[in-house]
């Protein structure tokens, strides 16, 4: 689920040059439309986690649109000449550009609702438009669009002599349903019998992030599949995985999405075949209570740990293992709680590093050097990051016939290069006063590899990280 929610849903904002024309329309001539600034928005409704698509329309910017709203609303915002709250006050059309540069409507998209952005002074969502308020409305629509189709938004029903539309270049790139099939050649591909041969492969990806979009449900149902089919059934890379799941938030005001999905996976001939049922939740701890205890001159931990709990039950139907290898258990279950805590800093470290003369000190602007702004002291000099987790494997018994539990974790010491005086001479760009740009990481980890029968590995890592 975390991956799904991490998905970057693109937003396209189009700024349109402001027309210098603002005056009286000659009799008989169509009014020159004010240029609307529009963009697309994609988000999840919470707690149902259903995807939603919207077009944002700026009603207070640029200035000609603001002026137009004065005319459109009139003297009584409660009884406006043009009602911004109605879907019928807008037209969203898929357009095509003609040879003479004009735009032609190809089809009209249905706007299901209009969401005014912002609360009034009583703390309730705005329910009518006044001049400049709200600054933006969002038109909720069903994004049934091709990837290259462009949209134009027009305000409908404006007072005579007024017009407003966008420039018809808006694109909506995110879709609920996606499918791709990529053929590829795999020379000297490794087969399961140990031989190699040239094969042809097809990589097939499918996802539907809102499987039951026509039905109003209190949760989101999704499906996804990732497959690699080969011209040789013995191709060791061949695989398929098909999942159907549902997700929703548990609490209306606290982000805690839970998901359950069922996955069937194996190779293309199903000689390896298993069924995996997953149940998981991710959330944050309430943290405002910690301000005095964990945000002071000794330690600064302004953010709570991220918590994720995963449950996975695997039933292996068919197993095809290499000669000499042991069959895996037919039924496997794992409970996997994970906590990640970053952004922990130690403010006293700058003082200690200062005594050791390894920290840069801030400088005042030099009045004799024009443009010299001085330098800021480092924002912090020492931080840490902690990651902990565990696997509880009740069906996997140890030699002493105990249920298996494997814990793991890592601790990192972080030193931003921006705080070190020698680094500013060696890496002047990397050590500019931005602790988020680069840091020294010294990490000790005790890890287990779930894909390799929870094999344990302990090691130190040292390095300089460059952070985008």
């Amino acid at each position, binding site marked *: 689920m975390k991956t799904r*929610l*991490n998905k*970057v*849903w*693109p*937003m396209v*904002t189009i700024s349109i040059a*402001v027309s210098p024309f*603002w005056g009286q329309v000659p009799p008989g001539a169509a009014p020159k439309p004010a240029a609307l600034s529009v963009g697309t*928005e*994609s*988000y999840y409704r*919470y707690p149902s986690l259903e995807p939603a698509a*919207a077009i*944002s329309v*700026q009603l*207070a*910017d*640029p*200035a*000609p649109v*603001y*002026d137009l709203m004065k005319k459109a609303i009139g003297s009584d915002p409660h009884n406006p000449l043009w009602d911004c709250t109605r879907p019928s006050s807008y037209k969203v059309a898929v357009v095509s550009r003609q040879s003479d540069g004009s735009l032609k409507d190809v089809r009209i998209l249905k706007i299901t609702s209009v*969401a005014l*952005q*912002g*609360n009034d*002074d009583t*703390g309730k*969502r*705005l329910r009518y438009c*006044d*001049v*400049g*308020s*709200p*600054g*933006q409305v*969002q038109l909720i629509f069903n994004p049934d669009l091709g990837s290259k189709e462009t949209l134009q938004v027009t305000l409908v029903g404006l007072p005579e002599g007024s017009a407003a539309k966008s420039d018809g270049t808006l694109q909506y790139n995110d879709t609920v349903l996606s499918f791709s099939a990529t053929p590829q050649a795999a020379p000297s591909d490794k087969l399961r019998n140990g031989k190699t041969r040239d094969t042809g492969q097809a990589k097939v990806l499918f996802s539907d992030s809102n499987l039951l979009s026509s039905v109003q449900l209190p949760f989101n149902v999704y499906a996804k599949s990732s497959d690699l089919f080969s011209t040789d059934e013995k191709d060791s890379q061949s695989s398929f995985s098909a999942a159907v799941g549902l997700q929703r938030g548990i609490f209306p*005001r*606290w*982000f805690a999405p839970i998901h359950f999905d069922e996955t069937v996976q194996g190779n293309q001939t199903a000689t390896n075949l298993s069924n995996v049922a997953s149940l998981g939740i*991710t*959330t*944050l701890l*309430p*943290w*405002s209570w*910690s*301000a005095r205890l*964990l*945000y002071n001159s000794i330690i*600064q931990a*302004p*953010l*709570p740990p*991220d918590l994720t709990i995963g449950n996975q039950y695997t039933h292996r139907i068919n197993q095809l293992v290499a000669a000499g290898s042991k069959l895996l258990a037919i039924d496997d279950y794992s409970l996997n709680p994970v906590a*990640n805590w*970053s952004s922990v800093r130690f403010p006293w470290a700058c003082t200690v590093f200062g005594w050791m003369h390894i920290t840069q000190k801030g400088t005042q602007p030099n009045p004799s050097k024009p443009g010299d702004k001085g330098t800021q002291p480092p924002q912090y000099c020492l931080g840490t990051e902690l990651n902990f987790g565990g696997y509880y494997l009740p069906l996997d018994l140890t030699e002493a016939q105990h249920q298996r539990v494997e814990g793991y974790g890592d601790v990192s010491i972080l030193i931003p290069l921006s705080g070190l005086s020698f680094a500013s001479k060696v890496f002047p760009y990397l050590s500019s006063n931005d602790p*988020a740009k680069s840091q020294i990481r010294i990490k000790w980890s005790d890890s287990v590899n779930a894909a390799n029968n929870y094999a344990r590995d302990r090691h130190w890592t040292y390095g300089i990280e460059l952070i985008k």
Partner: protein
Amino acid sequence: MERSIEKTNLARWFNYLHALQFACSINTSVQTMTLLAFANAKIATILPSNNEQNQFILNVKASPGFDVSTADLTNFSTFEALLDHFSPLPTYVAAYLQTLSAGAYPGGSLADFLNASISGAFPGGSAGSAWKTALGLLTSVIPGVCFSQTLQTAVAATVDDPTKKMSDPVNQISALG
């Protein structure tokens, strides 16, 4: 002439900024920030993880009442830029200044006002009575930390520059400081 909706819109923008700061209270470092520091804070620094960003989105939907997407949190680097996307501060500063300007500007279009010379809209420059009144009313709406004496002095220098248009002090004030 002062119309209440322009003043309301400007005051409400700062109420929205306060609400955004409160919506970030999951990060305890925000609680001690000034409103100006918060406005200029990097969203990615204050809300680094996916869970924190989604919790913020939930909070913001309730107050100040915006439907924010996760893409907004990367497309706009600071909280002021994010708020301007939903509620444009330069428009509200300009519209309020327009109501306080001289001549025919208060009844005219905002686009014309932004293109007007400062000397036409506020005769006498920063020493003129129109600008002094406007400045007094602006400071009563904009929190002091976001419209410091230093910024007021810089804006006054712009107002006294005969080559500048009204859009210049509007942008200067909207940058906060």
